[in-house]
């Protein structure tokens, strides 16, 4: 290059963050403060937190424009929302309809997200098209790891045009976690910068938070910043016992965040599912969860019972806006797992 070029304006991005984030720390901070993909302390833990969100030209808070999104808003006004995962196999359109059929009538919407062992998935818009065709409301996960803003904007525009109930805007795990470390990490956007772009298209927008990841004390304030950026619902990573979840909600409220919090409720019906769940990076499970599961004669029935008990305790507190029931599934057992999800969702009031 003939002349060195200095880029003046930007560089609110943390130069040493492997995801070059602006609004960290992400959920991938280990309990000892190290990064999920580096042995060094997360660069954001040396800074004053939370990083305040700075309004940008892109996007703005439009009202929810899709019919499915408005229906969910109406449900949320009268009772807590009950979302579940959809255990369709990655890149298999044939497994969508049979799993959706099990969930129909029991869930308010299904969340289709990311997995460390399935980085290669149909693109969000195509998954949304497949799921919406079954009649289920779809809450679609979009990660900033694999697409830059141009490709992400096209996905979001299609989600709006396809009538998705909502979009879960996540930064995403680094590519060096999971089975495809060969892929280049993109992170042009991150959760906080994707939210206003989704809102500008009239999408109902959620974001994730990991209550148990350092810095625990400022996670509630980080939620407040994501709310300022346009986030309307907060889905949490598994954060331990009900009291831990409620302590997190209290930290959100103390920081001025008013968005409904929907904790994750793990559902496990077999050993493989438990192993997958334990592999989720920032996941912290209920005390004794796996021990009780494996001590049970009927693992499946015990898994359903534990999920219903956990979900009921959360909903009975009156502090949460709903729950997201999900977990790992053994290959080939997707439909049976969907049946279990539907059972738990129905018990928690979903679909009513």
């Amino acid at each position: 290059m003939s002349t060195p070029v200095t880029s003046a304006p930007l560089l609110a991005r943390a130069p040493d963050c492997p995801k070059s984030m602006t609004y960290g720390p992400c959920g991938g901070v280990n309990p000892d403060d190290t990064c999920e993909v580096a042995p060094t302390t997360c660069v954001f833990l040396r800074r004053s937190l939370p990083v305040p969100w700075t309004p940008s030209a892109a996007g703005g808070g439009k009202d929810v424009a899709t019919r499915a999104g408005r229906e969910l808003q109406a449900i949320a006004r009268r009772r807590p929302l009950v979302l579940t995962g959809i255990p369709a196999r990655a890149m298999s359109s044939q497994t969508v309809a049979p799993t959706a059929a099990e969930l129909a009538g029991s869930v308010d919407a299904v969340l289709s997200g990311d997995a460390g062992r399935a980085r290669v998935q149909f693109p969000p818009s195509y998954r949304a098209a497949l799921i919406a065709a079954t009649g289920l409301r779809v809450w679609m996960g979009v990660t900033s790891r694999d697409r830059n803003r141009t490709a992400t904007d096209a996905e979001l525009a299609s989600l709006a045009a396809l009538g998705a109930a909502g979009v879960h805007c996540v930064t995403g795990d680094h590519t060096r976690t999971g089975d495809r470390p060969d892929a280049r990490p993109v992170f042009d956007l991150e959760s906080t910068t994707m939210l206003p772009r989704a809102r500008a298209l009239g999408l109902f927008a959620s974001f994730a938070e990991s209550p148990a990841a350092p810095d625990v004390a400022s996670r509630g304030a980080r939620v407040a910043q994501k709310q300022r950026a346009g986030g309307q619902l907060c889905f949490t990573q598994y954060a331990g016992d009900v009291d831990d979840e409620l302590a997190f909600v209290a930290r959100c409220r103390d920081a001025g965040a008013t968005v409904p919090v929907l904790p994750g409720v793990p559902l496990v019906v077999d050993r493989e599912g438990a192993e997958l769940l334990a592999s989720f990076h920032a996941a912290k499970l209920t005390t004794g969860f796996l021990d009780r599961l494996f001590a049970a004669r009927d693992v499946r029935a015990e898994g359903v019972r534990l999920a219903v008990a956990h979900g009921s305790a959360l909903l009975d507190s009156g502090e949460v806006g709903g729950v997201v029931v999900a977990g790992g599934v053994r290959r080939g057992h997707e439909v049976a797992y969907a049946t279990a999800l539907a059972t738990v969702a129905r018990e928690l009031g979903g679909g009513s």
Partner: protein
Amino acid sequence: MPGLTCSFAAAADHLRDLGFAPELVSAPASARESGDALATIPRGAAATSFAEAVTTGGVITAGLPVRSRDPGLIAEAGSRLSAMSAVVTSEGLGTTLSPSHTALLLAGTGATVLSALTCRDRNRVALEGELAALADIGVAGVLAVTGDHSSSAGLPGTSRIGTTTATMTEPVFDLDSPRLAALARRAGLFVAVVERPAAPPSSCRPSRLALKASAGAELVIVDLNGDLADLATFTDALAATGAALPVLVSVPVVTTDAAAVHVATAWAQLVLSAPGVSGVHLSALVDDTDPTGLGTQGLGAVDVLVRMATQLREHLERVPPPPRVEPAA
């Protein structure tokens, strides 16, 4: 990028020595157990019949001239363009629906679809997922494009100072067109690529195409910017590589100007009769800065392209395309 000399132009000998190995797109060992990779998918019916059309010759494709996020408008355009040999989508202009959604809409109208995918906007796992979706939808194939760097693509909010800024889309370039072509073939899709013969180092363009062909490309859409003599020079050079790809010549059309349409149609007729050419690709020059964004111009452009194609097919009935010269074994 201004001020930057292309490394490949500076070392043209290196370019001739480049080869393509299938391992370049194989998933790592970590993905073996989970199968977290694009599977090998048998060639679909649409890909097979488009490949046959290319072999026959006299192919007439059209770029989708609609820049809109209105699904109804895209579907209407697809329906009107369904008699084309294929509709070729474009990518990365900032005002489009997603590639898979666009393909779903177009394929639903019965159109034969070649979906453009650029390497600029997605990493390899996202590209693998896109290809799996396109194969699942049943499109004929892809146009595998490396893509323009964000600093030269003219996207809204981009600058030309030679580095990314806060408002510029991040250029990804995890893969390039040859590797994307190889992945697309794994997905059972027909693979087209683009080439600009006049772009420096121009003498290397035919061997670069041979590299793309060895990676899996089956057709090249050529952005000629020249006359019949330039075309003959290029097709001769391509044939000499021993891996001659069938050539479609891109014919740009200012669809809002009747005289320009007439000139473009006459040029397309000449090209269709040229030796070593398998067809033409009609490319409407659409005003991307159209502030209305309504795409009404787009449907107007669609109709112009359809009329041109009808005239060209009538021409082909009077003057059949020359037999394709198979590359020497």
